[in-house]
């Protein structure tokens, strides 16, 4: 059974106007483009994709968030702007769930939270505007084939980021394996960047009494927010994998306060991201519902598997999956 996604169809027709004048449908792996340009995607493929993404998220944590948009593009031919916008709307649901489920002890540093949100919203809007610009920028000819600029740029950005994440996962798996043989804990990588940023004393300096921080540059807090917001607006990821280490190692915020403040930031960021991307027409509501109701059970399954299976072997598998996705992404662009 295939379902027509109205927003994805709308952008499909704008990004590839030739596809709206077809004599007969064009079939992909799990999608079909109708003669009028409508995009119909296999419901079964979307359900399996949602479950797998949830499973990876539950097993490996935040890095899997980077996979959703590229996989939606690969599996369903869903334009990147729609994949990112829909991912952010889905994030409203997962953030609501996370806030309800992980409700901590109420250790939210509101002063820090508001400043982080301010930086994040600015970064997110810049990311969303950048994506909008790319979407309307038209196409380029690559190896004798016309391709939209958004498809090309996002393939390169995601390809680069996934390659970096894959290499980190591989290194982590290898060091965990070595530590297992050496009967010790894996070493903690040096955080040279964090140490350098801690020394930034650009005024105004503010104190965070709730977190026990005497003085920290306002610009560092806004910068952390802006960088994670930019990633959220452009790529549709939560940014927690940067925000959490930044709060703990750069700003020196206690872990329990970091967790609760990050949860608040996550929800507000998801709401603003869903708002600005829906105003730009990037949220496919039906796709959002499918992803939300499939990723959540998948996540629970991934969490269960994490307790049962040896971590480093599956990390190597994860690195292999990432590598295969990168190759397929570039094959899709170049074929």
């Amino acid at each position, binding site marked *: 059974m295939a379902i*027509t996604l*109205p*927003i994805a169809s*709308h952008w499909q027709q704008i990004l590839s106007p030739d596809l709206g004048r077809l004599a007969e449908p064009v079939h992909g792996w799990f999608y079909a483009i109708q003669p009028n340009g409508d995009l119909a995607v296999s419901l079964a493929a979307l359900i399996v994709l949602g479950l797998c993404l*949830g499973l990876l*998220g*539950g097993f490996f944590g*935040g890095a899997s*968030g980077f996979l959703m948009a590229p996989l939606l593009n690969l599996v369903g031919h869903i334009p990147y702007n729609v994949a990112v916008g829909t991912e952010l*709307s*889905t*994030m*409203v*649901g*997962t*953030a*609501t*769930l*996370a806030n*309800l*489920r*992980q409700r901590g002890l109420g250790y939210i540093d509101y002063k820090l939270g508001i400043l982080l949100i301010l930086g994040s919203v600015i970064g997110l809007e810049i990311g969303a505007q950048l994506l909008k610009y790319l979407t*309307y920028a038209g196409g380029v000819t690559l190896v004798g084939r016309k391709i939209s600029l958004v498809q090309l740029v996002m393939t390169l950005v995601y390809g680069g980021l996934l390659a970096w994440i894959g290499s980190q996962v591989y290194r982590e798996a290898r060091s965990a394996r070595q530590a297992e043989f050496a009967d010790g804990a894996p070493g903690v990588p040096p955080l040279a960047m964090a140490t350098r940023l801690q020394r930034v004393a650009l005024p105004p300096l503010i104190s965070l009494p709730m977190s026990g921080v005497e003085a920290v540059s306002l610009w560092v807090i806004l910068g952390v927010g802006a960088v994670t917001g930019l990633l959220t607006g452009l790529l549709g990821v*939560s940014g*927690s994998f940067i925000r959490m280490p930044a709060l703990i190692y750069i700003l020196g915020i206690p872990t329990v306060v970091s967790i609760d403040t*990050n*949860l608040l930031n*996550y929800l507000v960021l998801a*709401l603003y991201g*869903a*708002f600005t*991307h*829906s*105003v*730009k*027409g990037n*949220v*496919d*509501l*039906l796709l*959002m*519902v499918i992803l*939300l*109701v499939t*990723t*959540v059970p998948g*996540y*629970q399954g*991934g*969490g*269960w598997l994490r307790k049962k299976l040896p971590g480093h072997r599956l990390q190597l598998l994860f690195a292999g999956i990432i590598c295969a996705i990168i190759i397929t992404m570039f094959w899709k662009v170049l074929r």
Partner: protein
Amino acid sequence: MAFWQWLTAMSQSASPAGELFAPHWPYVALALVAPLIIGLILALILKVIENIFGIKLGGGDI
């Protein structure tokens, strides 16, 4: 079926073809409210499962 047709109509641009996308406001509201409600329902379902089977499930992706 009527809801699906309404949803499809809401998801179209309000501006004429060839112009920048202009959203219908119910579409924007749904993009915010629908996942919020689904997230609440899912949290409730997980809580019920925990209570029935006496297990502890995961917290939710961040």
